[in-house]
């Protein structure tokens, strides 16, 4: 942990002064802003911390740091159900649809998630419903080969993504697979046509039965636009969980705090690299510690 972080300095300065002035509290707020938590949530957290400090008359740096940590943990909400719905139902495999804007790590996440499921002895089928981006299906298939699961794809660029997704689930049913993971093309949430197409992918897949998980992949480097992404994707395909990728970098991914609160959609998984094993469950405390440390 970096002991000379902005927060460390802020808190020390704060407690070495006689009065807690605006400037020192601003420094605490800065720490939250730097994690992309956003202006309103940061203000709220600081206000509530101030109130507690006032009531308790706390003066020790360690205690204050601990209180901020508690405050954040409360906001990130350890009570949310973060389990993944990947149990086969009767005749049908569980279906997971992976969505998000361009380049966030959807295809990679599908590959890594397949690896996790295979390790749990599940039979997995991948569906390459990104028929748009150059070599997207090849990329997914490489992941499939890596983790030893079949990939259903079209041999034609620009094929109907809904048809490919439908076929993937159909194959999953025929093969009596446990889980079908459908990778979709990246699309920006303000592109109505592409969002409609995604809605159609989901509806067509649902002809086989309900989709169990819709995972929105958010890149941890994303700033405030992440909220807009989550909002629109949720409206179109009802997101059930978030995968926060690229947490192995310097970005903290704080936007998910606002996203979870506004939409009630929990972060379920995190991406920690480009390798097959770089996927982990989201842990509230570790996430918070990365922000306050």
């Amino acid at each position: 942990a970096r002991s000379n972080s902005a927060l460390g300095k802020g808190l020390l300065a704060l407690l070495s002064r006689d009065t807690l002035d605006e400037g020192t509290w601003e420094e605490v707020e800065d720490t939250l802003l730097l994690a992309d938590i956003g202006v309103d949530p940061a203000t709220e957290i600081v206000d509530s911390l101030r109130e507690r400090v006032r009531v308790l008359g706390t003066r020790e740096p360690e205690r204050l740091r601990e209180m901020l940590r508690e405050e954040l943990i409360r906001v990130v909400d350890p009570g949310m159900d973060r389990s993944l719905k990947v149990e086969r139902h009767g005749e049908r495999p569980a279906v997971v649809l992976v969505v998000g804007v361009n380049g966030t790590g959807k295809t990679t996440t599908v590959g890594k998630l397949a690896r996790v499921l295979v390790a749990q002895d599940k039979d997995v089928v991948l569906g390459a419903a990104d028929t748009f981006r150059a070599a997207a299906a090849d990329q997914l298939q490489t992941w499939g080969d890596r983790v030893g699961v079949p990939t259903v794809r079209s041999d034609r660029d620009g094929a109907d993504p809904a048809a490919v997704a439908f076929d993937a689930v159909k194959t999953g049913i025929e093969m009596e697979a446990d889980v079908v993971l459908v990778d979709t093309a990246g699309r920006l949430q303000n592109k109505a046509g592409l969002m409609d197409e995604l809605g159609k992918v989901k509806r067509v897949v649902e002809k086989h039965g309900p989709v169990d998980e819709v995972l929105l992949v958010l890149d941890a480097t994303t700033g405030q636009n992440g909220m807009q992404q989550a909002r629109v994707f949720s409206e179109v395909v009802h997101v059930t969980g978030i995968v926060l990728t690229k947490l192995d970098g310097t970005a903290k991914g704080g936007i998910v705090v606002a996203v979870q609160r506004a939409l009630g959609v929990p972060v379920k998984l995190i991406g920690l690299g480009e390798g097959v094993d770089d996927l982990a469950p989201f842990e509230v405390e570790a996430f918070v510690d990365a922000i306050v440390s």
Partner: protein
Amino acid sequence: MFSSLSDRLTATFRSLRGKGRLSPEDVDTTVREIRRALLEADVALPVVRQFTTAVRERALGEEVSQALNPAQQVVKIVNDELISILGGETRRLRLAKTPPTVIMLAGLQGAGKTTLAGKLARHLRNLNHRPLLVACDLQRPNAVNQLQITGERAGVDVYAPEPGNGVGDPVAVARAGVEHARSQGYDVVVLDTAGRLGIDAEMMQQAADIRTATNPDEILFVLDAMIGQDAVQTAEAFRDGVGFTGVVLTKLDGDARGGAALSVRSVTGQPVMFASTGEKLDDFELFHPDRMASRILDLGDVLTLIEQA
């Protein structure tokens, strides 16, 4: 939800109407609104601070107190400051005196480098150059195929001697690619490199090695316009680790405010040269500082008001 800065400032100014001059408190309120809007636009905190300090100073100075409408004068200052940071010297791609010109692309994972390689190649081809794309990303699954397909779509040749997916040495490919271009009469070489994190020392060293091996005329830092506060740390890491001569902002067809443009320009001093605005090869433009300024702060209405005043 949030009203835009434009709405909020208009409201603030309405309450000031009739007052001859701005009190320090009026300036504080205005600066606070601007700070908030910059943060919501993902402008990096240190840059926000510099910016608001500069605005506050000017707002309390002569030009405002003597203005006909001081409140609107403040907005004009904000807009001018934005454009002056974003703009600076605008310049074209630097071409080598003795071809081939070497352009290296670098950036985080998924920023849009490979797509940009295709766009640049198409752009250069339209200007009657003979570009060659070189596949130096040998890491990401099927990055080489992706570049080959992109090159095919752009109608330009791709040099891809190694299959990738972990096989081959990117530095050797980069060096050989430039040699190949020289011997085969290509006049511009675009090096597509793997995405990397600023804190990945090994990968940053690889980028530096590619640079040393090819001595590029331009190193373009490719940055996703959706990036938040990490923009500064990442830009500094690429500046220190590889060095870059220009910035390309991608995914500007989205609805992110793109405050990163301000952050990167102000932290590294390097100009934003191009804007990537879509997934297709032609979705590529020169960067326009004035458009970016009004995008970041959504000052449209307020500026119109000022013009009418």
